[in-house]
């Protein structure tokens, strides 16, 4: 939200003016419109500079005469702007200096007022405009910083690329931390330098094909320490000006995710193997045991060689016991470490 300066009566204003008559006039006008204004006064650049160097008191506005004893004109304006930071400056000048005053506006001065035309209302209006403009400017600046932070403070590594040659123009903190390159090193690199040579064509195709649905694929990125990671890349073209486009890349390190996936795949295979064993190996002796029991029942105790069949039951039961033990062993040895 724009905070229009509301306590206008309590403004803190610095007047830099070497002509005492002019100063008294301006001070009168100011106090007429801003009853409780706090007014500082300096007559030359040197004292003003010292004041700023030793004092970080908040000033709301500066009224500046273009002709001071040791410094005047554009040089004065430039020097004042240098030490003032973003405090609005309004120039007080005579008819003869209008051209100079207009030039000052281009340098960043907010407004200029002709001394001979000055009156309380005009002064008040100019001050109001200057203060409002300043609060708009700082609002825009804040938003610019906010948007920059979205890039710089994002937990996902992000890079800003020049469209065309894919030179890296900026890298956020997460990218600097993930890849190990300093910002200055990034700025000397092309995005393609992060890829092994065999992926370069693929990446370029992906970026410039602009196929909407397939703008994410898995690639390899080489870190500064020459380790490699698997990344999923997201590209977004952003217009910087009418002619110029940049590309924002977001890179998600999915190395861990792929490893976990691999673990799951290898565990699934083991589970399948166990299921297969259950189905084939366990059921073999079990089916035999049941078959023999059927046979004994059918014969209703008249079976020859009953001892032979009982022995077979024992053999098959032991066999099954062995198999079940082995399955339990296999399940326990479920290797959570996929490197093996």
């Amino acid at each position, binding site marked *: 939200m724009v905070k229009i300066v509301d306590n206008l009566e309590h403004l803190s204003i610095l007047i830099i003016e070497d002509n005492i008559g002019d100063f008294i006039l301006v001070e009168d006008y100011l106090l007429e419109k801003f009853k409780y204004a706090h007014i500082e006064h300096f007559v030359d650049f040197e004292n003003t500079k010292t004041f700023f160097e030793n004092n970080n008191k908040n000033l709301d506005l500066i009224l500046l005469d273009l002709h001071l004893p040791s410094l005047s004109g554009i040089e004065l304006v430039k020097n004042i702007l240098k030490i003032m930071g973003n405090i609005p400056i309004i120039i007080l000048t005579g008819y003869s200096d209008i051209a100079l005053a207009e030039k000052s506006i281009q340098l960043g001065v907010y407004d200029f007022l002709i001394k001979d035309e000055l009156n309380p209302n005009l002064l008040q209006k100019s001050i109001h405009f200057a203060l409002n403009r300043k609060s708009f400017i700082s609002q825009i600046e804040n938003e610019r910083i906010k948007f920059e932070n979205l890039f710089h403070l994002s937990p996902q590594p992000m890079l800003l690329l020049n469209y065309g040659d894919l030179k890296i123009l900026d890298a956020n903190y997460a990218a600097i931390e993930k890849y190990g390159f300093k910002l200055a090193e990034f700025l000397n690199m092309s995005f393609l330098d992060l890829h092994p040579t065999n992926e370069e064509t693929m990446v370029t195709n992906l970026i410039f094909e602009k196929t909407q649905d397939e703008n994410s694929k898995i690639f390899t990125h080489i870190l500064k320490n020459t380790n490699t990671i698997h990344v999923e890349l997201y590209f977004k073209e952003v217009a910087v000006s009418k002619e110029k486009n940049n590309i924002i890349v977001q890179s998600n390190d999915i190395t861990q995710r792929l490893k976990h996936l691999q673990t799951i795949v290898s565990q699934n295979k083991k589970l399948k193997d166990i299921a*297969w064993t259950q*189905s084939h190996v366990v059921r073999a002796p079990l*089916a*035999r045991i049941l*078959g023999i029991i059927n046979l004994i029942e*059918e*014969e209703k105790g008249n079976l020859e060689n009953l001892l032979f069949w009982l022995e077979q039951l024992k053999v098959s039961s032991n066999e099954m016991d062995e198999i079940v033990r082995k399955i339990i062993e296999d399940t326990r040895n479920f290797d959570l470490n996929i490197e093996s």
Partner: protein
Amino acid sequence: MKKEIIIIDDDPIYSLVVSKMIHKLEPNTPIHFSTNGLDAIQKLENMSFFRNHILLLLDINMEHQDGWYFLDSMQTKGYQLIPNIHTFIITSSTDTSDIKKIEKYSWIKKYLHKPIYIKDVMEFLSVTE
């Protein structure tokens, strides 16, 4: 028409159990034993399947040439078209992939999971009636 039976299974005890059941129902029907697919196909080749009914009781999981080998060999030789040859699968496997695979051989009379009961044996033997 006479019938002959081949039990193709590498589990000798199980084969013995089945043969006992058959023998109880039809003491005079000849029973041959085979423990792998290759031996079984050779035995089948030497039998007079135009004069006699041949009942095949086939296990799937065997060492060396398994039941699939036997089934594929039969198809190569065109034996699946001979009406006197009756093929039954008796397997201990309950694996769904095995069952799906068995269903692809549409000429198989029936498949059963072990263990089999005397009523199953009766059903096999009555296939020729």
